């Protein structure tokens, strides 16, 4: 599992936010476009790409994209 690839998949869930601003350190809850629908999309993306079932509390409890990556990685 590759961190850069995960960041890219994460960024794909957004429509308005420029892909270039996403890094492993991005605090995604602070992004203007962040919403509960995008949260659900991230859960859907992780299910599709990594076959891992995230819960709402996993997303809520993560600050950076890398935090979430680490959760997914630990469950593969």
């Amino acid at each position, binding site marked *: 599992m590759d961190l850069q690839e995960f960041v890219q998949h994460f960024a794909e869930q957004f429509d308005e936010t420029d892909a270039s601003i996403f890094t492993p350190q991005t605090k995604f809850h602070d992004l203007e476009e962040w919403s*509960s*629908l995008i*949260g*659900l999309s991230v859960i859907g993306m992780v299910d*599709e790409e990594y076959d891992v079932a995230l*819960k*709402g509390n996993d*997303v*809520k409890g993560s600050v950076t994209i890398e935090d979430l990556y680490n959760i997914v990685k630990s469950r593969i």
Partner: protein
Amino acid sequence: MLSNPFSLESKTVLITGASSGIGRATAIECAKIGAHCVITGRNQERLQQTFEQLEGQGHVQIIADLASQEGIQTLAEQVPQLDGLVNNAGINLMKPIGFIKGDDLEKIYTTNTFAPILLTKFLLKKKKLNAGASIVFISSSAAMGSGIGNAVYGTSKAAIMSFSKYCARELAPKIRSNSIHPGMVETELIQGREFSDADMEADRQKYLLKRYGKPEEIAYSVIFLLSDASAWITGHALVIDGGRRV
């Protein structure tokens, strides 16, 4: 003794999905108010837990898998003559439209839509529903398009709302049919899932009554629709959502 139109005394009622949540609460409350309950579920242990909580005598439990047509047909053969049918068994899926898979549709529709339609059909075919019987479908407020990520679940429940109205039309005047549309109810169906605890708490505050429902608060309306107190109500879709959609 004064007769109570809200009583289910001497009525036999089949409740699907009785091993947890709204189905379990419905079975327990129906038994309290005098019904003979026929309860079904997939999980023997959990169904037994419900069975043990049923007051009174004459209740029956039947393990059935409503995901297969054979399972539904067998159940329809096994049950006694019925005065009430509560099509409650259901499963949930929370996914944005862009992530829906064909398998998701098949799985959710099989349990939430095909099973109640086929069970109703087989019970009618075998003439198991007595004259004066009442059918209650547990649909959802999601049938009206509420919430995000609910497209598959909501459409599966919208189909049932529509089916209930067709039952009302085709089975009148002998048999009544109504659907109930709960908002969020505190059951296992909604716990520890895609929404965080903080999101859920924020969502509760959007309800006028500032909380989600309790399973028995849905059961009480099921009882009303099964009872003679609702003898002139058919084809109705009853929303019970703590004022969320006002």
